[in-house]
């Protein structure tokens, strides 16, 4: 397998973009990524998106977006893995270049969630769950995460006050992120008093719904040499795994097995251990997923995620900088695009171009993207190459 690099990234601010259609939003991110890469022309476009069919009535996204941004004719397709559509699209893009079939691939993610009534958007996002056996009974996606959260809290005796440190850190970080949907600090009290969405999950435990698009350009070593970049970011390891879709078929509610397996694969391929990682963008669709993912990715022992968080291990100047972008909670979670945002953010860190979010000495980064409640997980490890 040959090496694959990331040559350019592009992101839009996440929010309610009522003036921009799905393709306009995507075009904004794509253009940035291409400008950032010396204007190379991609041979393929792979885009992640979860809900355009449901909320925009638009299928056929590959051709739809390719032709809009002037790439008519290239190979193009959409990838869907619920909230890890972006990560899965990246995985596909990586395979495309690593295999040698393509040299330059534009990987993107785009999602619009703000234009339909809340109940309809909620139902669309619940499509990640089992329709006949979970959504059928009124279990929204948040509800399923709430089941996990209660189980975790009771099992490890972790009070809500400790879990609330998660959104606290996320908001603190997002204040430095020009693309974030919620770029402001919040007080612990605000979090503790926020309305209950699905007990015990409160408003501030949930990532917001927003529109956004992100794109990264994947490139072979030869092509990269042609535009001769200095600070290079190489894809060092990838891993993908799945778990049962019905929550009831899981062996344990305290861990996302798919995260563990995907991470193991990626670590192995990159020849590193969790200790070697400097910057992380992990999938905190809900506070509890953030905490469990710290453990699943090997940064905390089982049941210790909240304690380590409290002790500052994961702050921007801590041992490992987790979600310096603000994570899904405060940077935002335009579902199909999130995985690509994560890649873009890690890339900027490794290129020393993260500005106010910059973590010192960022050499190795990890992106973790989860679809459904851990039913499909993509883990990507990027390294800085001088």
């Amino acid at each position: 397998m040959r090496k694959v690099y990331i040559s350019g990234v592009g992101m839009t601010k996440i929010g309610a973009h009522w003036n921009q259609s799905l393709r306009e939003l995507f075009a904004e991110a794509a253009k940035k990524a291409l400008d950032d890469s010396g204007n190379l022309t991609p041979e393929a476009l792979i885009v992640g998106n979860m809900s355009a069919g449901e909320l925009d009535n638009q299928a056929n996204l590959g051709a739809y977006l390719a032709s809009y941004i002037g790439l008519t004719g290239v190979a193009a397709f959409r990838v869907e893995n619920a909230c890890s559509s972006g990560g899965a699209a990246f995985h596909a893009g990586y395979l495309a270049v690593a295999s040698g079939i393509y040299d330059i691939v534009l990987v993107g993610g785009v999602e619009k969630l703000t234009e339909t009534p809340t109940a309809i958007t909620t139902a669309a996002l619940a499509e990640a769950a089992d329709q006949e056996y979970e959504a059928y009974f009124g279990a929204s996606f948040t509800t399923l995460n709430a089941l996990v959260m209660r189980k975790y809290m009771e099992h490890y005796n972790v009070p809500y006050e400790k879990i609330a440190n998660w959104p606290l850190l996320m908001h603190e970080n997002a204040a430095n992120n020009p693309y974030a949907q919620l770029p402001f600090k919040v007080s612990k009290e605000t979090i503790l008093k926020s309305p209950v969405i699905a007990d015990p999950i409160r408003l501030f435990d949930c990532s917001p719904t927003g529109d956004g698009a992100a794109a990264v350009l994947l490139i072979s070593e030869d092509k990269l040499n042609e535009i001769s970049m200095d600070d290079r970011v190489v894809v060092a390891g990838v891993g993908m795994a799945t778990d049962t879709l019905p929550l009831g078929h899981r062996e344990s509610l305290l861990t996302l097995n798919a995260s563990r397996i995907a991470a193991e694969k990626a670590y192995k391929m990159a020849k590193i251990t969790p200790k070697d990682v400097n910057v992380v963008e992990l999938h905190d669709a809900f506070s509890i997923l953030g905490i469990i993912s710290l453990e699943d990715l090997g940064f905390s022992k089982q049941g210790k995620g909240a304690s380590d968080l409290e002790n500052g291990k994961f702050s921007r100047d801590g041992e490992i900088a987790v979600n310096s972008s603000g994570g899904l909670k405060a940077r935002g979670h335009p579902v199909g695009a999130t995985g690509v945002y994560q890649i873009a953010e890690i890339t900027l860190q490794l290129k020393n171009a993260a500005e106010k979010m910059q973590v010192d000495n960022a050499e190795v980064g990890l992106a973790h993207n989860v679809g459904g409640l851990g039913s499909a997980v993509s883990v990507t490890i990027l390294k800085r190459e001088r």
Partner: protein
Amino acid sequence: MKPKEDVGIYGWGGYIPRYRILSEEIARIWGDDKNRIISGLGIKEKAVAGPDEDTATLATEATLNALKRANIDKSYVGAVLIGSESPPYAVKATASTVAEAVGLPRHIIAADLEFACKAGTDAMISVIGLVGSGMIKYGIGIGADIAQGAPGDALEYSAAAGAAAYVIGPKSKDTVAYFEGVTAYVTDTPDFWRRPREKYPQHGEGFTGEPAYFRHIISAAKTLMEDLGLKPNDFNYAVFHQPNGKFPRRAAKKLGFNEDQIKFGLLTPRIGNTYAASTPLGLAAVLDMAKPGERILAVSFGSGAGSDAMSILVQDAIEEKRNLAPLIESYIKRRKVIDYGLYVKFRKKIDIIDYME
């Protein structure tokens, strides 16, 4: 009337929803004198179905209870008939949903019946006919309703929810009781009715008394007793249709029955009028305690109008079957009082807009 071969009850079962609204709460909202209402109607509170309940779900639980007591091979059930004036669909039989939910075989006679509050006994008697003719082995007759009273109307105090089911088959040592005879009495008397697109029924107020309820109940009961050569003191229990706590007592008095005979089957003061389930549930409450050899009179009344009267003799098998399913008293005691706001929300007496288009 009686079938050529004797027919009996293999299992009985009832269901009453958990929620209750007090008459005094309804009176509070509408500015009625609560003491006049309670003493006048003889109803303290009524059973209210939850937002996830309808006639099909009520009927299903009652039927499951009846089947638990019956302890028969379900594959020999040949009919399921439901009497109700509140089926979930105007067209699509509740009987098919209940059959599916309790796991009945496919080759069954199934249909919904309507004759206001006597549809439950109509279902039972029709099943008696199917069994007595030898066409089927077992059949299930159900009375179930979630009655709706117009907001602020007198009927709002009594319109309640409940269901009762009877697994009926050829009389044997395994039947808990058998039917000695039945009689009906029907006239076209428009005392209470509802046109198809109306949400709530209309009624003739005082006209629902003598020309309707009393005339038909008394005629059916008297004729039955004459046909069977029985007198009121041959019966241990009398269950009359119970639209309120007063009418059944007056009917009893007119016919010569006393308070002790009717009190165990008179549930309305505590759960309201369960319409097509009214007489069947009263009968079920009596079966919950009746002893072998005792005799029960059950007379329903359906507006429009008619009465079915049945004489039932209890057998030995009742003792061992009684505790195989919850007693009616367990359901009556299982109660959660709600206020008028929740009542209106649960029963959708307001327009609930589910989501913005």
